[in-house]
C-alpha cells in the first residue's frame, strides 16, 4: 500500500540509479542518436542489466527530428513496453523521473532508462532558436534574434529594478559554480572565474553579460529508474524519490516573470518529503541564467520573494559552503547539452547521494533538491518542476 500525502500517492519504493554523463563537446559532427546510443550503452554496461530487460524508455531531445522516442527503439534494437518522449528542455529531468517513477510503481515497466541527449553542430543552435516555438517564430525571434538572452535580459533587468539585485549578486552564483566545476572532470570550463572577470565581461544583452550565459554543446545525461528492491538486488548505488512536483504556465497573468510555478506547489513538495527547506543539504537549481537560480531560492522557500540578493550575499554556494548549489558547476560552467541540461542536476544529485561526487562531494548529504525550468516559448519559461531525493539507508 502506497502512502498518500494531500491526495497524492507517495513515490515509495522507487529508486534512481546509474547516473551517466556522455562527455560534452562544444561541437560534434555526431547526431543526437549517437549520443543516445552512448548513453544507453553506458546504462547497460554500468548497471549489469541486459538491454532486453530495459522495458521502459523516456527520451528528451531537441535534435532528434524527424524521429521521436519511438524511432530510438528501432535504432537501438529495444522493445520497451512503456515509452515517453519528453522534449521539455530544462524541466525534462524532473518530468522524466516523475513519469518513470509512476510506471515502475504501477508495474507498467520494471526498469526505465531516462535519457536526454542533444547534438550541437556549428549551425544547430541558431537554427533551433527561430523555430523553437510558434510564439518564438511569430513574436520573439524576429526582435533582434537574441534567443533566450534577450528574454532573460528583460527578466533580469526587471528583477534588479524590483528587488535591488546587483550584477555582483548574480556574479556570486556564477563564480561559485565555476569553483565547483573545477572539481568536475566533465565540465567544459576548466579555469577559475573571478568576480572581477565576471563583472568585466562583455555585454551580450544588457544587463546579461558573457558569464551569465551558458555554452551550448553536445552531450548526454541519463539514469535508470527501478524499484528499490531491484536496485538492492543488483547492488546498485541508488537514491530514493521523496517528493516531486511540476507545474506549467503558472502565473500567466504576471506581465513579466518574477516568480515560477514552484511557488504554487512547494508546500506539497516539502509535505510529501516530510522535510522542510532547512533540511535540504544541497540544491541543483536550473541555471540557464543566474537570475533564475535566485528565483528558485525564493520560490522553493529558502528565502522570501525579493530576498534572493541578500540570500546569496549571506551564503557560500560552493560544494563545501553552507548552501551548496549546482555542485557540478551547473550549465553555466559544465555546459548546456540541449535537453541534457535538464538532466544535469539529476545525475549530479544521484552522485552526491551515492558517494560518487569525488572532490566536489557535499559532506554528509542526506537530502538533495533538484529543480527544473524549461521552454521559453515566448516571454518566459513555462515548465517548472522539482524533486527531493534522499540517500537510501
Amino acid at each position, binding site marked *: 500500500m502506497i502512502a498518500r500525502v494531500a491526495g497524492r500517492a507517495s513515490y515509495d519504493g522507487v529508486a534512481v540509479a546509474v547516473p551517466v554523463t556522455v562527455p560534452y563537446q562544444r561541437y560534434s559532427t555526431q547526431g543526437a542518436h549517437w549520443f543516445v546510443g552512448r548513453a544507453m550503452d553506458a546504462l547497460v554496461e554500468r548497471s549489469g542489466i541486459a538491454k532486453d530487460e530495459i522495458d521502459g524508455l523516456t527520451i528528451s531531445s531537441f535534435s532528434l527530428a524527424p524521429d521521436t522516442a519511438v524511432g530510438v527503439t528501432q535504432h537501438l534494437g529495444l522493445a520497451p513496453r512503456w515509452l515517453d518522449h519528453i522534449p521539455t528542455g530544462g524541466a525534462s529531468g524532473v518530468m522524466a523521473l516523475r513519469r518513470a517513477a509512476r510506471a515502475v510503481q504501477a508495474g507498467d515497466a520494471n526498469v526505465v532508462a531516462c535519457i536526454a541527449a542533444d547534438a550541437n553542430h556549428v549551425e544547430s543552435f541558431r537554427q533551433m532558436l527561430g523555430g523553437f516555438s510558434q510564439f518564438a517564430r511569430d513574436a520573439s525571434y524576429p526582435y533582434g534574434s537574441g534567443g533566450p538572452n534577450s528574454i532573460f535580459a*528583460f527578466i533580469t533587468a526587471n528583477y534588479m529594478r524590483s528587488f535591488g539585485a546587483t550584477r555582483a549578486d548574480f556574479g556570486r552564483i556564477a563564480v561559485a559554480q565555476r569553483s565547483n566545476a573545477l572539481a568536475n572532470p566533465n565540465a567544459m570550463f576548466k579555469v577559475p572565474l573571478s568576480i572581477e572577470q565576471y563583472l568585466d565581461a562583455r555585454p551580450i544583452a544588457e544587463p546579461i553579460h558573457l558569464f551569465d550565459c551558458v555554452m551550448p554543446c553536445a552531450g548526454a545525461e541519463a539514469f535508470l529508474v527501478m524499484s528499490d528492491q531491484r536496485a538492492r538486488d543488483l547492488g546498485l548505488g541508488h537514491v530514493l524519490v521523496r517528493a516531486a512536483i511540476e507545474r506549467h504556465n503558472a502565473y500567466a497573468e504576471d506581465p513579466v516573470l518574477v516568480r515560477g510555478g514552484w511557488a504554487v506547489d512547494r508546500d506539497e513538495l516539502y509535505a510529501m518529503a516530510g522535510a522542510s527547506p532547512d533540511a535540504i543539504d544541497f540544491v541543483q537549481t536550473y541555471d540557464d541564467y543566474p537570475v533564475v537560480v535566485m528565483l528558485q531560492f525564493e520560490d522553493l522557500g529558502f528565502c522570501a520573494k525579493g530576498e534572493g540578493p541578500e540570500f546569496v550575499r549571506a551564503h557560500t554556494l560552493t560544494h563545501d559552503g553552507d548552501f551548496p548549489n549546482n555542485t557540478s558547476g551547473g550549465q553555466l560552467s559544465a555546459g548546456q547539452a540541449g535537453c541534457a541540461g535538464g538532466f544535469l542536476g539529476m545525475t549530479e544529485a544521484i552522485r552526491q547521494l551515492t558517494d560518487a561526487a569525488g572532490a566536489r562531494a557535499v559532506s554528509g548529504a542526506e537530502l538533495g533538491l533538484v529543480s527544473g525550468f524549461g521552454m521559453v516559448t515566448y516571454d518566459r519559461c513555462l515548465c517548472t518542476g522539482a524533486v527531493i531525493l534522499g540517500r537510501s539507508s
Partner: protein
Amino acid sequence: MTMPLMKPRRKNPVLRTRQMNLPPWARGRTALGMTAAAAEGRFELQVCQRCQAVQYPPRDACHRCLSSQLKWTPQAGAGELLSETVLHHSNDPFYRERLPWRLGLVRLDAGPTVIAHLHGDVAAPPPWPGDAAAATPQAPVRVHVGARLDRAGAAVLIGFPIEESEHMADDKMLREMTSDPKFRKILVTDGKTEVGQALVKALVKAGAEIVWVGHAEPWKKLPGLDDITALAQVTLVPLDLTNGRSVAELAGEIGGKVDIVVNNAEVHRAFGIASRHGTDAARAEMDINYFGLLRLAQEFGPALRGRSADGTTHAAAWVNLLSVYALSNYPPHGTFSASKAAAYSLAQCLRAEMRPSGIRVVNVFPGPIDDEWNQNLPPPKVAPAALASAIVKALKEGIEDVYPGDVAQEWLERWRENPKVLERELAAGG
C-alpha cells in the same frame, strides 16, 4: 532626443557594397493577420468576440475562454515599458550587422505583454529606488506601441515615445523600417502630369537629395514643368516607358544611384468596350500602365536590389501608382481598369521578387484623381497634392498598400465586404 540624420558622405567607390540579409521573416498563417493590418498602417491584435480578451502572440483559440472567434481589431497601443535591453549579440546576420539594438518589454493597457523594438527617444524604466525609497515607486515609463513592416515585409511592433520630437523619424531602428525620402535619390517617371509635379514637390519637401523627373517628350512645353525644374534638387531626364531602349538608357545612366522609384506614368482614357471601336486606346493604356511597369522593373529592379543595404540612404522602395479600379472594373473606364488590374497583378510579382532584398513595393490605389481625364466624374476626387502627400506618408511610415481619398476608402470597404455586390453596384453606375 533623436539627433538629426546628417547627410551621408559620398560613398567610397573602393569599398564593397554591403548586401542585404533579411531579418527573420517566417510567420505562421495566423500571425500574418498582423502583417496584413500593418501593410495598411494599422496596429491590430486579435480580440475574442466572446469574452473580449485581447490576444498576443497571435493565437487560434482564446487563452481565456477558448473561443475560436478571434477578430483582428485596431489597437490604441498605449502601454507601460516594463523592461528593456540592449542587444550586443545576435544570432541573425541582419541584426548582427546593426548592433547594438534596443528592445523593450511593454505591457499594453489592453492586456498582453509584447516584445517590441524600442525607439531611442523612449526613456529607460526607472532604476531600483533603493531600500529607503522602495515605498515610493517612481512613475512608470509610458509608451505608444505601433506596428510596422520590417525590412523583410513582416509586421513587427515598435515602442514609440508618447511625446513626438522633431527628428524622431531619423532614429536608426526606425529608418530600417521605413523608406523615408530624406537624403534619398528618387526617380519620378512622369513629370508632365499634375500628380507627377505634386509628387516632385512633396518629395523635395520631404528632404530628397535628388529627384530625377522623367519626361517623354522633351520638345513639348507643358504647364508646371518650369516650376519643378526651378528646384535645385530636380533634374529632367528623358524617359519614354513605351520604348525599351529609352528605359534601358536611363537605367544605364542613373540606375545605380536611384534609391526610390516612383512610377506614376499612366495613360487614362474613359472608354469601355462598346464606346470605342478598335484596340488603339486600350493598347496605349496597356503599353504604359502594364508594359511600362514591366520594362521599368526589368531595367531598374536589379540595381535597386543590389543596393538595398548600402549605408543609411540605401535603396529602399518602389512605388506604383495604380487605381482603386484595379480591384474591380469600373465600366465607364473599363479598359483603363483592366490595364490597372494587370499592373496590380504584376506589382504583386514585383513585390515578391523585391522582397528578398528588402526593397518595399508600395502600391497606391487612389480613387478618381482630380485631373483632366476624370473631368466628368462628380466629387469627391483626390487632389494631386493630397495624393502626393499620401505617397510620401506611406514612404515615411513604411506602409505597403495605400488607398488615398474617400472614394478609394469606400470602395475598398465595399470590396472587402463582398466583391460580387460591388461588381453589381459598379455595373449599375457606382
